[in-house]
């Protein structure tokens, strides 16, 4: 089932995939704003809505990249604007750690990015997605560990 669905989208859209983990309170709203304002965006991103970037397990980043996601983008509320007060302050330490760790295991760190976008920043959202998509398009497909997954 799932494979079929993937094939259908593959035919109609670019085959590169970015997994976006977006905080429910800011960046998901920001992405929505960008959509409502009809800002053009590259079609690479697939969004996973999370309650807060504080929920962002660094393993999500590694698992997605190991399974062959071409990029991982994490976005939440600007520091000090967190719905839960400090979730994103914890998150940025973890994300900074995992971002620096990726090259040690042979994963290109350019495939991972985290940033902060508020619900009103539709324009900024468009910019973030466009820029990151350009990076991923330049890097091309990520082999990940799919061929080693049996």
């Amino acid at each position, binding site marked *: 089932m799932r494979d079929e669905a993937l094939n259908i989208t593959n035919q109609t859209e670019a085959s590169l995939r970015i997994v976006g983990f977006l905080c429910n309170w800011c960046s998901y709203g920001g992405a929505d704003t960008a959509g409502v304002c009809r800002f053009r965006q590259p079609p690479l991103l697939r969004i996973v809505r999370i309650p807060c970037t504080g929920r962002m397990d660094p393993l999500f980043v590694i*698992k997605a990249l190991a399974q062959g996601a071409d990029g991982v983008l994490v976005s939440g509320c600007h520091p000090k604007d967190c719905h839960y007060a400090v979730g994103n302050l914890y998150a940025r330490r973890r994300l900074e750690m995992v971002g620096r760790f990726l090259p040690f295991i042979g994963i290109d760190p350019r495939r991972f990015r985290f940033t902060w976008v508020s619900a009103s920043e539709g324009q900024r959202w468009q910019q973030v997605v466009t820029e990151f998509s350009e990076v991923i398009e330049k890097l091309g497909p990520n082999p990940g560990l799919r061929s*080693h997954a049996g």
Partner: protein
Amino acid sequence: MNTLQSIVESIWDQVDVVLGWRVGYDPLHPVPTFVRDRKDIASLIWNPLCAPNLSVFLAKFFRTASQRDKKIGILAKGCDSRSLTALIQEGLVDRDRLLIVGLTCPGTVDPDALAAARTQSGPITAVAFANGMVEITSADGVECVPLDRVIERRCQRCRHAHPVLYDVVLHDFEPRPVPKDPFAHVEALENQSLEARKAFWLKELERCLRCYACRNACPLCVCQDHCLAESRTPKWVTQKDTVADKFLFHMIHTLHLAGRCTECGECERACPMKIPVGLLKEKTAQIAMDLWHYESGTDPGARPPLLSYDASVTGI
């Protein structure tokens, strides 16, 4: 002159039990022992073959122990004392109930390096350490091997061979000098290309049996009964024997130890397949040092960086 026995005798009235080492099936293989009877103090030993980090038992001890007045005595080399400190920092053991016998450490022996360095093969009857030499007595006679030739990788990079936390300290050996570049092994891998690094880990981890000895030997892996690696909901890693699954298991261990790992090297020492899994954690320790100037297990009052935040930081 203090000896191990005299120190343990002197603290005996304050403790319920002393965690230490005794001779195992031969003199090359000391094993952990829990001394609860005064007459067993004589069986305690301390030498560069006493590799196991005894603090691995403590978190369980504290979870199950009934509240008693007496303390838990424990022998601790430098690296072990850092593990103890980290456990105290995280509230997993109670400092007031510990009596730590610190041991200045000359480095521990890699048993395989020792086996390779020996020219004789007879069963070993005695081992002694003096002046930086390992003196092995067997049926074939006596043989000396320089300690430096057979030292464990973790000890080559040790920055705290003098314990960081103790109540009494035993100076039986000269502590190992601090190396110039403790992260040399990390850097050697980083000097290679991204592809080469990935190939390195795939090749190394291919051998992994997923026996979880590395995890079980880790003093700071304290949620083993609820480990993500074995959880079914959510199911993070499958039971398949693929290198991708092995890789993911090691990412779990590494990231759960990020900012906490004290570089004791037990994970690597315990690995039956000689996989340098300690390297993964050394990298996270190096990142913690770069980002937060934090060295885990050196300050019982410090808060691990990933358990806290600094709101004043800007730019990320």
